[in-house]
Every structure is written in structure tokens, then in C-alpha cells.
């Protein structure tokens, strides 16, 4: 097994003249909760789209659990769970029907038992037989998370998971991320621009600015390096305006 959960080497993505991602090189070890920070349009979602095999980079290579996301995309997909920014599910189906269908596609064995366990883990068994079309944003996010972890992936990608959630929903999500990392030993890659969430959940951070990685370190080192009196928010803003080695 590869020592790295996620590895990218000089990946770039261009749309015509626009460079969305510029030679991104990134190494993330197993067990990390990695917060990927950046303003809107910095290239965070493009990075997740490449790592989840939805998009092919125009240049460079990327691996998830040692599997090339382009040439060995099916094996890479077996290792990952993915929660998009806006969780879309079949509105006319119940949560359980959605989970059953997506679980079947992931080849989950003993599916009903796994669905029950997952809903229990995410504390949302009461949603099982309700139609997804009736769900609030927070409830939808939970079922979105449930579908992503049904097959117990090694790496979980979350794209702006707290987007649109109220404070209660954000706290629940934060607790879930910590729980998934601790109990199911999942490596978590989280796109966000919410500094507070990063400080409370992540073990390492990367900062992306206009498609370029301008900083990557453990959260502890970042805090130590910039001093106790420096807020993480100021740090984020400063990192986005300078290149840090």
C-alpha cells in the first residue's frame, strides 16, 4: 500500500486561456484531516474534481491510495467517498432508496446492515424512509455524507461541506468529521474557506491562491510559526497575498 493517501505531482488544469490549477504538488498522509483553504475560484473544487476522477488534468499526475486517478480511475474510485458542495440526490426517492442504489454501485456487501449502521453513526435513522425532496440543507448534508461513507472509503473528499449550514448544522458536521477520522480512520480532504472550521477539525492545511499552492503545513506548525497572537484568519489573508516557501 502507498504511504500517501493523496499525492499530486505538478497537476494543472486549464480552460482555454484560464489556468484554474497551476502545477499543484501535494502529499497527504493517511489519517490526516486536510483543510484546503482558498478564496472562491482559487482552484479548490477543480482539485477535488481531479482527485475524485471527475475531471482529467491537462498536465501532471495524481494518485489516491497509490492508484492513478486517470489511468486507474476505477480502483481510485473504490478508495474514495465524495460529498459535493451541494448534495444532489434523487428527490423522489427516500433516503434509504438513494443509499441502497449508490451502495449497490459501490459494491457494498450486506447493504441493509451497512445502511442501518451508517445512519446510526450519523445519528439520522429517522430520515431513512423520508423522501429526500422534503429535507433541509443539514439533513441533505447528512445523507450526502452517508452515501459517501457507505463503502467505508479510505479517503473522504468534502467540497465546502459547511456551505449554507446554520451554526448547529456546522457543529454537527464538525463533530462528524472528527468522528469519521477517529472511528473509521478515514483520511479527510476538505475544501473550505471557513477558517474557524479548519482550526477546529483539521490536522494540516494547504492554502491555494489563483491555482497555486502557496502554503502547506501541519496546523500546529502554522500556529507556532505565526505566533499565538496571530489569528488564523489574518494568517489566511496574509498567505493569500504572499508566496510562502
Amino acid at each position: 500500500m502507498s504511504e500517501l493517501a493523496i499525492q499530486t505531482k505538478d497537476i494543472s488544469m486549464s480552460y482555454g486561456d484560464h489556468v484554474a490549477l497551476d502545477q499543484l504538488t501535494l502529499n497527504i498522509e493517511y489519517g490526516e484531516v486536510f483543510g484546503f483553504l482558498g478564496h472562491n475560484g482559487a482552484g479548490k473544487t477543480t482539485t477535488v474534481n481531479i482527485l475524485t476522477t471527475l475531471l482529467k488534468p491537462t498536465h501532471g499526475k495524481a494518485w489516491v491510495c497509490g492508484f492513478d486517478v486517470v489511468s486507474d480511475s476505477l480502483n481510485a474510485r473504490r478508495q474514495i467517498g465524495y460529498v459535493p458542495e451541494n448534495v444532489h440526490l434523487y428527490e423522489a426517492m427516500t433516503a434509504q432508496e438513494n443509499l441502497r442504489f449508490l451502495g449497490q454501485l459501490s459494491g457494498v456487501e450486506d447493504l441493509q446492515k451497512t445502511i442501518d449502521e451508517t445512519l446510526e453513526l450519523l445519528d439520522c435513522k429517522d430520515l431513512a424512509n423520508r423522501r429526500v425532496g422534503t429535507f433541509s440543507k443539514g439533513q441533505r448534508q447528512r445523507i450526502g455524507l452517508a452515501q459517501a461513507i457507505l463503502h467505508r472509503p479510505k479517503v473522504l473528499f468534502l467540497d465546502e461541506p459547511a456551505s449554507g449550514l446554520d451554526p448547529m448544522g456546522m457543529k454537527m458536521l464538525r463533530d462528524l468529521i472528527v468522528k469519521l477520522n477517529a472511528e473509521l480512520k478515514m483520511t479527510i480532504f476538505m475544501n473550505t474557506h471557513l477558517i474557524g472550521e479548519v482550526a477546529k477539525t483539521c490536522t494540516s492545511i494547504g492554502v491555494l491562491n489563483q491555482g497555486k499552492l502557496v502554503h502547506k503545513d501541519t496546523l500546529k506548525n502554522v500556529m507556532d510559526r505565526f505566533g499565538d497572537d496571530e489569528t488564523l484568519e489574518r494568517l489566511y489573508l496574509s498567505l493569500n497575498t504572499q508566496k510562502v516557501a
Partner: protein
Amino acid sequence: MFASRYIMTAALRANLRDQTVLLIAGLFIVLVLISAYLGWSATATVQDVYLKVVEAYAAKGQIAPPNPVPDTPPLGLLRNMATYVALIGALAGLVLGNKTVSGDRKSGVYALLASRPITSSGIALGKILAIIIAITGLLGVAALTNVITFMILPNFSLSADEWFRLAQFYIASDLYVISFGLLGAFFAITSRSEAKSLMIPVTIWLTVTFIIPQLTANVLPMAALNPLKAMAPAPSGAFFVFTQSVLTPISFAEAYRALAATLLDFAPPGFKFQSFISPMLTLMIVNGLLISAVVVAFGKMDASRSAYDD
């Protein structure tokens, strides 16, 4: 293959819950039932009138003329079916094919499907199978209705050859409607706009059904609607000679109409379809090309931007 089966099952389930699909499929079935009732009613009326005529002649001591009903080719009673299939059946197939794909794109689920361990051709196969099964089910109900009609109609017992030709007619109809289902699916995959994904195949359907047959002159302008006028001789003139020779081999609707007319005994005596490709082969080739196009389109689809713009 297993993953394709799950895609297929989910697509069929979604179609069964889609009101637009149910409405247009229901309309097709209602028309089939009306057609069957009209066929039964017309034949029964002629039969009743004939029996009264026989009684009247007998009262006068005269011999009645022969009963005209047994001389009518029984399969010819289904000529309206060819029209319903070409019109509402093709439209139902088109909507069904479109909804089978657009539902996933509209709801944004496609990104989740594409992040699963299934290939794009696996997803395409599941969707294609769903379209084929749904349309075959729809045509199956129509076929069953016709079979029951023939079993209860007086004086109309089909020979083995006629039963075989009826089966061939439904195979041809199935292929014809499936091709429109695949056309609907293709544009649902390749269009950036949901509205365009339906408008473009509807325009193609109108062109194939009404415009090309006018240019080839294999059938007159009303032929797609009125089987009685079908397969009239082509008008003379250099333009029609040219368009006929160029467009007839690819005139898909006419291939179906010609096949239906031949199989159901409503083609004029001596009629020959003016193409070097047999109508059934045309239907098969079109379906093969469309299946390939759908598979390729799924492969080229950008899963990260799969939602429609509108």
C-alpha cells in the same frame, strides 16, 4: 454488468415516477385501445349489417352477395397502429429516452454516479437497457391489445404466417420507437440546456416524419398521417428524382412505413420501396449507430459540470 443493472433499475423506477413520461405513455396506450375498439366496432357493424341483408334477401327468395368481411386482409385493420407508432409512439420514446438521462443531470446526481467504481460505458449500458425495456413494455401492451382484439373479432382468424407478420410488425415498431428513445437520450447527454435537449430531437422527429418524406416523394406529404395515400408513385421531375435517390436510403420514417404497409397488408398492389437497403436493415443500422453515439457521448461527458445551465 452488475452495476449497469442497478443503473437500469433506478432509471426504470424514476421513469415510473415521472409524470410526463407516464402521461405520454398513457396517451399512446389509450390510442391503441381506441384503435382496437374502432376496429372491433367497425367490423362488428359490417357483420351485423351483412346478416340483416342476408335476412332481407332470404325473405325475397334471393341469394345474398358474399360476405365482404372475410375478404378484408385482417392485418390491414391495424393500419392505424403504424400511424400511432410513427407519431405518438415515437414522441413517447423520445420523451422517455430524454427523461431517462436528463433526470440525473437535472438533479445533479451524475457527479455522484461518476465517482463510483463504474465506467461511463457501464452507465450508458444501464440507461440504454432501461430505454429498451420501457419502450418494449409499452409496445408489448399495444401488441397484447391487438392479439386480444383478433381473438375476439368475429370472422378474423389469423393464419400462422399472419401471426408471424404481426410479430415482425411489432419488432419493427419496437426498433423504430427505441431509435427515438436513443435520440432523446443522446441530446439529453450532449446538450448544455435542458430545453435544447428536448427541442433538438423533437425537431429531428418532425423532419424525419414529415419533411424528408416530402422530398423523397416515396410517400406523399400526408402519407405519414394517412396510410391510404401512402406509397403513391413519385412525381416526375429532375428534382424529385434526385432527392428520391439521395434521401430514400436514409429516410428512416419511410423505411418503417414501408415495412409496416408490407407486413400489415395495406401496401398498394405492386408496391416496392425505392431503396437498395431493406427497411428492416435501415432500422437496425440506425439503432446501432445511435447506441454507439450514446455510449461515446457518455464517455465524453464532463462529470464535474454535468448539471444543465438552465
